[in-house]
């Protein structure tokens, strides 16, 4: 019978060791036995937990003022790494387990190098790493016998193949991506504490995905459509996705209408046509009943909807966002990306033809620019304005169908973005990248734009379905470069291996970690005040200014040059001509009458609508007079770019017997400017020239038709010209180049090809003016002609020769 509860030391040590070797139940007091990890761990856990007798930040969770400045969470540093580990056995290491998790590190955010794969010098294996001896035959019972079920190699290969596809995006399915960086021009402490803008010259890695909206994953690039312009900034305070478009407005004002809009524009549900096109009944039925779409329709019918390249289009954040400085003060901002190469577009006839010969036109262009070192570059600009300013505007800044004219709030350049690396693998990067408008970082915040509100929900939601669960943030392309620590756990395809047993907060068993960051480091929403007015109760309604559907549609149209206005009218004519129901056409023209009588009349004439239908009734009889009635910045011509030929493609036609030296002179001059100048032959391969060395054509009239090139050079040499003259492709090549208003240089005898193609006699007077983009030169003057040609190509297009219907 013990005389005392005070036990001798050896017995205590044994008890401590024994007590520490259970995963349930325990003594009333813990002590550590010398050199015994288990009891030391238990004792240290006890000490750490005891050091947090209560939750000290609990009282600070209440009240408005505390809500604006949440404190950092409480924590107790552990005495060693022992108490926070999952298992004592983490000290046992292997080539598979590696070592214990490094303190405070999430290793899944390492560079993409952690998941890169190169098979150089390696044998082929199964997914389990088993070398495969024969990758040609399934396992059979005899060479002519039945295949065997036990063939795990065949079954693994087929099973994986059977599951290669994931659901495509509901919208923006067709896309192309690239890596790059954003570089801030200056620190912006006055307006934001967002990580990318912390210092002049600060570099933030980005991944960008450009896309069309309507077409499916394999559809053509050159459809008339909005282009997605989504930028993922991997900032050191988390990922910021600026999920924008190449147009600053949208069709609708409220996310409630988003499924309706997309259902209307997508291929019609009964026969799944048309692909990658808005020129069909359901789209125009919907938008002509939604007059708030008029402004966006102007943009979509303009040449902005058929860009020459992703590198030659603007990008916009669309919605009004907020920027917040370190003092918590916020301003409204609109985001603008402006391409260094200028804003240049295709023409519709060209876009249609390209979609047949090269459906990957924009994807190829982006890839080739980057491979060639001609990195697409954009300047980021901000329109910054206060809530007080916004209240004075004639339009509502929460309305996604409105712009803030640059003449009202100038665009402030704040940095540049350069796309300088192609993905290694389309699926792993461009397909699996998940952009979400919800992804913002400290220093940024949302406005109350009701379309944005829906997007904040939808993007995350749709990725869960598309990427197979809630762990899509762990897919390498989506992982931040900032440390990721929270108590989100488990789910399909989880990759992180969390050390320790705590997956909740507050906790003391993990020393309080990870603890809430508090207002100093963490994201704090702007405490935007709700107006204390009666109509601010729960309600399903729009602000009154949202009802002005036409003022900015008119502003856009009136701000275009006459050629751009023609293109808009022609696009409406084309799209509506494809509609099968005359009443839908007429309703659309009735809607256009409220924006521009000139446009409505022109569209009606092109559709044989006579007389004009009455204008649609207006939702707002007397809208506020606009601050700006003409905005030259809305014309593509306002941004001619740096005039560089980088990324442009020039065709030099060749056939046996052309004059080689003059052609090579032009080719060298054009290539020196950064353009790709291809020899396009009656066939590919080497061809003798009239004057010496053979030329080796790397493309043919058949495989690279004329509309794929930005400009054309026709060769001298009677025999070569005769050979080209008898190839019907040549005439189509020239006609398309002429019709699409591209620069054409005819050397020596090749003027006969232009005549044969039907070059109108009536061009002579224009030619004397010198701005047609049609150049004629003797072979001997090829060097001087090349300089003139280069200047012509830099002008992009020569619309003086454009007639409707076309001359050629």
């Amino acid at each position, binding site marked *: 019978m013990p005389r005392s509860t005070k036990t001798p030391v050896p017995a205590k040590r044994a008890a401590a060791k024994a007590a520490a070797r259970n995963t349930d139940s325990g003594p009333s007091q813990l002590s550590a036995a010398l050199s015994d990890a288990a009891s030391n761990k238990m004792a240290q856990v006890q000490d750490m937990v005891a050091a947090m007798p209560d939750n000290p930040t609990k009282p600070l969770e209440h009240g408005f003022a505390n809500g604006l400045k949440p404190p950092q969470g409480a924590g107790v540093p552990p005495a060693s790494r022992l108490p926070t580990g999952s298992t004592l056995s983490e000290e046992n290491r292997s080539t598979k387990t590696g070592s214990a998790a490094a303190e405070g590190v999430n290793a899944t955010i390492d560079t993409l190098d952690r998941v890169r794969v190169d098979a150089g010098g390696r044998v082929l294996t199964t997914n389990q790493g088993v070398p495969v001896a024969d990758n040609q035959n399934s396992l059979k019972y005899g060479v002519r016998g039945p295949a065997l079920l036990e063939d795990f190699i065949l079954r693994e290969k087929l099973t994986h193949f059977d599951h290669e596809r994931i659901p495509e995006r509901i919208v923006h399915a067709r896309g192309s991506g690239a890596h790059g960086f954003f570089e801030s021009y200056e620190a912006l402490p006055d307006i934001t504490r967002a990580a990318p803008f912390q210092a002049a010259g600060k570099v933030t890695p980005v991944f960008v995905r450009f896309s069309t909206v309507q077409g499916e994953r394999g559809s053509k690039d050159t459809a008339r459509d909005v282009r997605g312009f989504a930028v993922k900034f991997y900032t050191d305070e988390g990922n910021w996705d600026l999920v924008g478009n190449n147009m600053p407005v949208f069709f609708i004002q409220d996310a409630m209408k988003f499924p309706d809009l997309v259902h209307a524009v997508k291929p019609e549900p009964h026969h799944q046509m048309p692909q990658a096109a808005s020129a069909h009944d359901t789209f125009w039925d919907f938008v002509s009943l939604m007059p708030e779409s008029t402004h966006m329709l102007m943009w979509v019918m303009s040449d902005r909807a058929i860009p020459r390249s992703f590198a030659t289009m603007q990008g916009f954040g669309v919605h009004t966002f907020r920027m917040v400085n370190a003092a918590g003060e916020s301003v409204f901002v609109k985001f603008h990306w402006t391409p260094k190469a200028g804003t240049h577009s295709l023409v519709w006839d060209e876009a249609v033809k390209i979609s047949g010969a090269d459906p990957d036109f924009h994807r190829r262009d982006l890839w080739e620019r980057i491979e060639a070192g001609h990195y697409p570059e954009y300047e980021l600009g901000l329109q910054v304005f206060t809530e007080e300013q916004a209240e004075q505007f004639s339009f509502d800044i929460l309305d996604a169908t409105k712009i803030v004219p640059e003449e009202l709030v100038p665009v402030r350049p704040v940095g540049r973005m350069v796309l300088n690396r192609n993905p290694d693998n389309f699926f792993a990067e461009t397909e699996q990248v998940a952009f979400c408008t919800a992804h913002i970082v400290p220093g940024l915040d949302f406005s109350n734009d009701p379309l944005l509100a829906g997007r904040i929900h939808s993007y995350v939601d749709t990725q869960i379905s598309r990427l197979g669960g809630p762990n899509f943030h762990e897919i390498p392309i989506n992982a931040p470069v900032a440390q990721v620590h929270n108590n989100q756990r488990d789910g399909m395809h989880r990759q992180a291996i969390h050390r320790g047993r705590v997956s909740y907060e507050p906790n003391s068993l993990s020393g309080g970690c990870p603890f809430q960051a508090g207002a100093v480091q963490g994201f704090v929403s702007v405490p935007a005040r709700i107006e204390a007015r009666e109509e601010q109760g729960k309600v399903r309604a729009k602000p009154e200014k949202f009802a002005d559907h036409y003022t900015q549609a008119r502003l856009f149209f009136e701000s275009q040059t006459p050629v751009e206005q023609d293109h808009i009218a022609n696009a409406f004519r084309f799209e509506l001509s494809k509609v099968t129901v005359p009443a839908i056409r007429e309703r659309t023209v009735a809607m256009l009458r409220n924006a521009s009588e000139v446009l409505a009349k022109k569209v009606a004439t092109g559709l044989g609508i006579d007389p004009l239908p009455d204008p649609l009734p207006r939702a707002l009889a007397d809208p506020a007079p606009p601050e700006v009635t003409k905005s030259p910045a809305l014309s593509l011509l*306002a941004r001619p770019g740096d005039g560089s030929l980088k990324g442009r493609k020039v065709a030099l036609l060749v056939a046996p017997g052309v004059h080689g030296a003059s052609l090579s002179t032009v080719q060298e001059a054009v290539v020196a400017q950064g353009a790709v100048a291809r020899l396009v032959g009656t066939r590919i391969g080497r061809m003798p020239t009239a004057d010496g060395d053979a030329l080796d054509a790397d493309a043919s009239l058949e495989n690279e038709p004329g509309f794929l090139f930005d400009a054309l050079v026709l060769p001298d040499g009677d025999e070569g010209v005769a050979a080209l003259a008898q190839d019907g492709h040549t005439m189509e090549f020239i006609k398309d180049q002429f019709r699409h208003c591209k620069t054409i240089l005819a050397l020596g005898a090749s003027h006969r090809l232009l*005549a044969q193609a039907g070059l109108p006699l*009536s061009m002579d007077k224009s030619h004397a003016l010198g701005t047609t983009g049609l150049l004629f030169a003797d072979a001997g003057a090829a060097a001087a002609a090349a300089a003139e040609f280069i200047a012509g190509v830099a002008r992009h297009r020569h619309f003086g020769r454009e007639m409707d219907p076309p001359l050629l």
Partner: protein
Amino acid sequence: MPEHHAKDACDLLDADHLAVKHLFVEYARLAHAPGAEAGRDRGAIALRICDELTVHAQIEEEIFYPAVREAVPGAADVVAEAEQEHGQAKALIARIRDAGSAGPAMDQLVADLARAIEDHVKVERDELFPKARAAPGLDLAALAQRLAQGQQSAMEATTEA
């Protein structure tokens, strides 16, 4: 640009259409160009457009329209429409000449003129020229010579004035 054939009367008039279109396009380009190009004088282009269109309208009214009206009885309405459009264009031309120097006001007038001329060109190209070309009694080659002579003397008169 090497000549391969002679122009007929419609080609000759269409050459004017194309030439002024080129001038309109160049004007708009300069009106929108940022930086150094913006400083280039587009006012001279506007005046050139006015001169070209004045001469063009004159030879159409004095030579081409009467000839077509006589040879193609069914063309009277189209010719009347074209003449009416000339009236609108002349009013704009007068305002451009009055505006004097290039600026937002002239930019707007030139853009308005471009649209008016485009409508006019479309009527001629789509309706009048096909009628003229199909008319058996109309010698478009001879008419072209008369138009060219009229153009030359009108241009001389315009530039002297």
